[in-house]
């Protein structure tokens, strides 16, 4: 099976996929909401967001200062397109397997799992 169009290696790791999936349902979300919803630590989420920001998939806005400091995260158009493409690719893999004749070729190696 070849890589379906839209499959995104950057979004593929489990934590990043969850972060992007949550942000895809929102206009913006607060850092604390994303962290608590996904049961991540501050540092783990910061690391994933930094990677996504470098790729231009998310924007991070910091507002206020001191105890009232709030960090909002937004999925960019580029990030949204990449996520939709990735979901379409995952669906294509599932549908391709469902329509393929039974055989040993169905179970392939998962190099992507190394990133999890």
């Amino acid at each position: 099976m070849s890589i379906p169009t839209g499959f995104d290696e950057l979004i593929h790791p489990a934590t990043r996929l969850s972060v992007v999936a949550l942000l895809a349902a929102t206009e913006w979300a607060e850092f604390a909401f994303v962290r608590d919803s996904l049961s991540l630590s501050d540092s783990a989420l910061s690391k994933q967001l930094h990677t996504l920001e470098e790729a231009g998939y998310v924007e991070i806005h910091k507002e206020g200062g001191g105890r009232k400091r709030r960090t909002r995260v937004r999925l960019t158009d580029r990030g949204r397109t990449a996520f939709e493409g990735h979901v379409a690719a995952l669906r294509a893999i599932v549908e391709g397997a469902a329509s393929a004749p039974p055989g040993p070729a169905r179970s392939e190696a998962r190099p992507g799992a190394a990133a999890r």
Partner: protein
Amino acid sequence: MSAPVDAEQAWRDLQRIRVPQERVYDELERSGSGGPGATWATAALMWVFLAGLGLDPPRWAVVTATAGYVALLAWLAVLANRRRPMRLHRSRYDWRSSVTFFAGALVTGGTVLGTGRLVEPMEPLPGSLVRATVSAAVFVLFLIPANRWATGSLRTRAEAGR
């Protein structure tokens, strides 16, 4: 080059996407239109405004009260928006959200006008209190279940689209 995931893993990833998106709808249901606090505060403001108007104040007082009422409603909206931890993406809303908003305005406005007519034979003070209480009660009784219905339908729509 082979696909980096097999079908089973791809299926698991598709299921994994659902979980964080469910959290977004949970939060939306929890907070409603700014949360129950905002609903009660809006109803209380409406009660004070209508009770005051029913006392037949002079024109300048009506204008001042209306301006104050609108300003306080706007301030409440800003406050509720600031407290939100997220905002649902515009693509996730559907016609039910608009219907809920306009139906809410229609039902509340209709109640204000209807009860205004019904209490005309009464004295101004008890009449205005009855009108304010009934209107604020209808607002709360309509808004809470209507919001729940609209949010529930958004979740159902999102699940159907997956």
